[in-house]
């Protein structure tokens, strides 16, 4: 835990004329689990799009293992070992469950994750490997989305609202899998609406408010008052 795996410096992001992120400063250490919290529209998904290369930035605004990656295309960023579990799952509807996983693994990066280890993590997926991904329940689809990201054996994985719209029992089983995932030395950034969940699984947390960092803290000792202040901007 010496050098940050990800360093964000002066990151701005725009949708046409609308500025969604303002000079963000953040870092994520090797092996760390970072939580990103914030109200709807705070810019959490935009941050993930910027890191993953789906939005073009200045090269130096995002550094990965010291290398400037802010201006790379999304496929180039993925090749470096950054995977995304996108908001709303976004599986490929014309691919079967197994094909969704295989396409996640197509870059051939070495590591512990393979079709078999993903099936070990989420045994239910093995039973429905041949069915179209859209015929699964929301929770199962989320497992496919997580498995698809793991299949690339990433060093850094970004989770965007993995519990959104899921039943509590499913959310629990997905979060129960999280320690297994990060125990392999992977670093993770977790966007989560459920603040207590986010804080309980993470080492540190940032709160975004209208595109700016409004709070940075270790997760264990952040006060409720500080969070509501950072969340809503009211004292």
């Amino acid at each position: 835990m010496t050098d940050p795996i990800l360093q964000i410096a002066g990151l701005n992001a725009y949708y046409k004329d609308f500025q969604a992120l303002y000079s963000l400063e953040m870092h994520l250490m090797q092996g760390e689990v970072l939580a990103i919290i914030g109200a709807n529209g705070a810019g959490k998904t935009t941050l993930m799009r910027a890191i993953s290369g789906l939005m073009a930035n200045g090269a130096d605004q995002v550094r990965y293992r010291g290398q400037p990656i802010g201006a790379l295309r999304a496929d180039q960023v993925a090749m470096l070992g950054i995977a995304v579990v996108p908001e709303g799952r976004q599986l490929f509807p014309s691919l079967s469950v197994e094909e969704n996983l295989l396409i996640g693994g197509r870059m051939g990066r070495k590591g512990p994750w393979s079709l078999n280890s993903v099936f070990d993590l989420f045994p239910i997926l093995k039973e429905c490997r041949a069915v179209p991904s859209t015929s699964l329940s929301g929770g199962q689809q989320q497992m496919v989305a997580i498995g698809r990201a793991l299949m690339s054996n990433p060093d850094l994985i970004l989770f965007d609202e993995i519990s959104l719209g899921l039943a509590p029992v499913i959310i629990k089983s997905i979060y129960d899998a999280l320690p297994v995932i990060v125990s392999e030395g992977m670093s993770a950034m977790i966007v989560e609406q459920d603040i207590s969940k986010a804080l309980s699984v993470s080492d540190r947390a940032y709160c975004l408010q209208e595109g700016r960092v409004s709070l940075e803290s270790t997760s264990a000792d952040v006060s409720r008052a500080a969070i509501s202040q950072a969340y809503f901007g009211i004292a």
Partner: protein
Amino acid sequence: MDWVNAIVQGTLLGGLYALFAAGLSLIFGVMRLVNIAHGDLIVLAAYLGLTVVMATGLHPLLALVFVVPTMATIGYILQRGILNFTLGDDLLPPLLVTFGLSVIIQNGLLEMYSADPQKMNAGALETASFAMGSLSLGVLPVLTFAIAVVVIAGLQWMFYHTAIGRAFRAVSDNQDIAQLMGLNKRHIFGLAMALALGVTAIAGILLGIRTSFDPSVGGGRLIFGFEAVIIGGLGNLWGTLAGGVILGVAQTIGAKIDPGWQILAGHIAFLIVLAVRPQGLFPRVSG
């Protein structure tokens, strides 16, 4: 028996139309690009074949060995050099650019080869026929149909059983997320266009053996290709073959009633399908 003959001949002709249509269907399926220059690219392939045949004395079908890779290369360069820049939320730029491309190809061919009709000579293959019952089947139409079936089956297999086919489907489903899987969509689009123009090369050579051609005939081939795709249902390759067959049969039956009605009958069949089943007869089943 005349009617049976018309239907059989129309079916075989449908194989050629399916080959016109397959490339069109493929690029629309992968990148939502409507290629107005498709017919002219078919004609370009026919002229390339003609040039190879004249330069080397090879049989036109053997000229495919040169024309398929050449057209595929042209496709990749065209896609990466020009067409990728036209793709986006707006459907109009690719239409305008491929329309411009169509004009350029036609005029380029006119400059180089003049407006005189040309034909490739396939020797005995053109007239060879065999009897089946009381029908006489031309070897060339049967071969054309067989090639169409093999090409469609090959494309179908590639789409559903190979890694590159999976990549084509993923990019078609969701370009952003596909890129998160490490797929460079510009390259994938280039490969799709290369594949489409490889198929177009086969269509162009078979066209140039079957009938005479000149630089202006591309528009008609584009229409037949479109009609086959729409009749069959977008995004379904076997449907495209069925669409080609329906179009071919309509045309030969029309011609049987009155020789002037051949093309019209095809258009009418197309309009009927469009009116009754706008999604085509066999649309892609997607979740």
